[in-house]
């Protein structure tokens, strides 16, 4: 059985969904999945990795690994790969994955298929698909170098399998040689916006001028808190009215976003706004005015007062997501 090593990405003590996606994929493809986990006080995550399907966990721990660094994590991952010689090496095409993967590939001297949207394992071969020319075409890629066959796969591209309880993973410690490191990240100072970056979020909840005040944005914030991997956006009119700073602006002159789910609340959908979000996978529009152009691009439209709809949505999401 071909072995697959998955890079386990975590944040704030929780494994990211991409890790689950990659492990499920490896398991469903008939591989022998293992995971590489690095951090400080993260042994608690080992059990979770096991329930996602990892049979073996390469664990690197230490104070110096509290924060992600390309140098330390990269070095350790390379060591784990060298000691276990997996057939497939899988990583998420997240900000961290995109930072780590090229350096690991270079150190291993193997090719890397980055930003993949589809993956398929047949026997000991890996076939991936990645968009090229800004998504205008898709390229199917097979590997000439390797093993390991190394791919960085976009979040939300693969489905997740059910968690299994009672499974155990064999833990192999990966030693950390502090003296070899040129830098150690001591602290990460977060900017004013603690929220997820607009362009990275999986779900964007945007508000328009109809919110009428910056205080009223709190009803959208509540919705954002409930949804996973979600963040807040705003239309140009809302930003112009001073409800939100310019960094929140979605549209032609703000950020161009393409999340899986875009919820437009009280946004009429002027062309400047559409230009910034029309490539979102699923668009939900909530607006009083049935004539609002936003409904033309929306997959789901709710013609109603957002002040009534959004709190109900928040409550319903809470119920569904907690069950």
């Amino acid at each position: 059985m071909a072995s697959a090593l998955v890079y386990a990405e975590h944040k704030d003590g929780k494994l990211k969904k991409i890790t689950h996606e990659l492990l499920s994929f490896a398991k469903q493809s008939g591989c022998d999945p293992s995971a590489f986990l690095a951090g400080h006080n993260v042994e608690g995550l080992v059990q979770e990795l096991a329930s996602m399907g990892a049979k073996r966990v390469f664990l690197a721990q230490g104070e110096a690994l509290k924060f992600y660094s390309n140098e330390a994590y990269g070095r350790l991952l390379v060591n784990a790969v060298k000691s276990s010689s997996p057939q497939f090496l899988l990583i998420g095409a997240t900000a961290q994955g995109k930072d780590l993967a090229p350096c690991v590939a270079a150190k291993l001297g193997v090719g890397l298929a980055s930003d993949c949207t589809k993956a398929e394992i047949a026997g000991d071969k890996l076939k991936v698909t990645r968009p090229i020319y800004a998504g205008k075409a898709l390229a199917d890629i097979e590997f000439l170098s390797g093993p390991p066959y190394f791919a960085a796969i976009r979040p939300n591209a693969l489905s997740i399998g059910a968690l299994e309880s009672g499974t155990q993973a064999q833990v192999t410690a990966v030693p950390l040689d502090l003296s070899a490191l040129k830098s150690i990240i001591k602290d990460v100072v977060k900017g004013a916006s603690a929220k997820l970056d607009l362009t990275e979020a999986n779900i964007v909840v945007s508000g328009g001028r109809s919110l009428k005040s910056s205080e009223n944005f709190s009803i959208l914030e509540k919705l954002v808190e409930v949804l996973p991997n979600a963040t807040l956006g705003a239309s140009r009119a809302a930003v112009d009215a001073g409800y939100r700073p310019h960094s929140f602006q979605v549209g032609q002159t703000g950020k161009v976003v393409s999340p899986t789910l875009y919820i437009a609340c009280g946004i009429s959908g002027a062309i400047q706004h559409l230009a910034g979000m029309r490539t979102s996978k699923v668009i939900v529009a909530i607006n009083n005015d049935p004539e609002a152009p936003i409904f033309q691009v929306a997959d789901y439209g709710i013609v109603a007062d957002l002040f009534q709809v959004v709190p109900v949505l928040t409550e319903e999401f809470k119920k569904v997501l907690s069950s």
Partner: protein
Amino acid sequence: MNIESLVFLCIFLSANAYFAYKVLILFRLAKSSTGTAWSGNRLDHIPTRIQVFFTNVLGQKAVLQKKGAGLMHVAIFWGFLIITVGTIELFLYEIFPPFSFEFLGSDFYSVFVVLQDSFTVLVLLGLSYAFYRRHIIRPAGLGKSYDADIIIVAITGLMVTLLGMNAFRMIADPKWFDSLMWASSFFKKGLESLVVSPEIGDSFFKVFRWAHLTIVLGFLVYIPSSKHLHILAAAPNTFLKHLPVSKPMRTINLENENNTNFGMGKISELSWKDALDLYACTECGRCQDACPAYNTQKPLSPKALVLDLKDLLMDNKKAVLLGKQDEIFSVIGKKITEDVIWACTSCRACEAACPVFIEQTDKIYESRRNLVLMEGKFPTELQTVFKNIENNFSPWAMSPEDRDKWAEGLEVKTVAQLAASGENYDYLFWVGCAGSYDDRNKKVSRALVYSLRKAGLKIAILGKEEKCTGDPARRMGNEYLAQTLIKENVNTLNNYKVTKVVTACPHCFNAIKNEWKHFGGDYEVIHHSQLLATLIEEGKLRLTKEQPEQSQEHPGGATKSKEKITYHDSCYIGRWNGEYAAPRKIINSIPGVEFAEMDQSGPSSMCCGAGGGRMWMEEKIGTRVNIKRTEQALEKNPSVIAANCPFCMTMLTDGIKAKELTGKVKVLDIAEMVASNMQ
């Protein structure tokens, strides 16, 4: 020749030599400018230019656009012309005494003397008003100017010494034109009460004469480095002005491989016309008063821009003349910042207001070209716009495949379809990106097709083959991208042998009509407001009080009778192309509506804030242009604000939203008003 005359002659000649030297430097500075953009033939249509000279230089027509200041200037200007003849006589009198123009005939000389005396008084009146205006009224555009004060004092000195000189001459020679020189003799009577003898009168005659001539010569030396340089440069600048109302942007020859520098990066890269513009500036501030950017607290003032460019050129003249490239100043610096250059909405209000026909927009366009093509410096938002125009042929990232979706169900045929079936059509409807993709403006496109069909016209479109005209890229300095699109579009139109084009977008209209000629595209282009006005005039479209039922064809919103309508002039139909009448004709032909003109309308209309690519830029500095313009419209308490441009439509609609008047005040395109009021 006596010794006195000889001394005077020397002084006279040195002052003139110095003046000539200064002017020569200015001439050489203008000539050494290396701007590479083609700024048009400025010596064509000589009879028209002569006519312009008579109406605007001698007739002072443009100056008189402002009544008070205009009349003041007319008095001083004509005084200057007439009194200069007297000054020449005086110089000759000094060098060859006792020279006089009297030999030309006593009747002529009498008129001459009366005119001299009367204009002295008129100039003094003009100067008093000038002083009053500068120091009591203090109009914002004028600003403080020591230079101007020096000149007011100097000319006042000239007039007073002139009156004094004549008065003392009358005392020395009591018969000397006493009865004709009414002003001077009034002065004389005052002096007589001091019992002045003819001998003393003669000495004072000389003192005042010399004082007068000293000021004249001092003036001559002072002019070339002062704001009064305009008395030399304004007349040629007027004669060499861009003649037609409409004006294409200067074309850069991108095929010329020897062109390695584009736009105006250094002060030496002005064109000769730009330099002459700087010399001609009178610092009157009318451009600044008219500027929508300045009036919403942006760092741009067209007046300051011109004066800063002039200062840069003057302070740097040595390096420019010697061609020392390393020492030549950049245009962008402490005074002229990038924000100044990007604040312009290209509305051309400055040029329309300028009494000496300075072309401010060209300086801004040339500077933008340099920033974009040479430096790669532009507001980050433009990166997206340029990329979209390049990839999707529209400033918005919309798919070219969807360009004809606005026409779904209307069954408008494409030129290609008609060509294949051998059918004819009356007009190609150039829809433009806003009319194709923007939901609000799609309604305008549909309303126009509906109206034109009703008038019996057959309309064709290019469909998916239409691309952005490149105009936004051009106004934002990306000449390369703009020319790529212009050439592709011209190619498409020429392939289909298109001859007549109608469009609802003033920016497309201006580009296709005035600018594509330089790229091999010559078409009869008409704006939809012009075409609709003609159709109404010819009786092919009849507007009615009766409300036709709202239909799918014109869902843009109906205008009912008893609506109060105000009209916002779009810059590119108004100032750039001189069409003010057609849209007003249409509104006034809707029975039962009340039309209210905004305070700033026609040539002095204020921009909506979207021109010059501002549509795609953030407005981070100052207050918003569109809000200000919307407020001006709301002063008239309209129920409808009429527009004829997709971008004005967006800006005014946003303004109405910001004022929370959505539903109470409608913004409608002229075409929608026609479509919803047709019989």
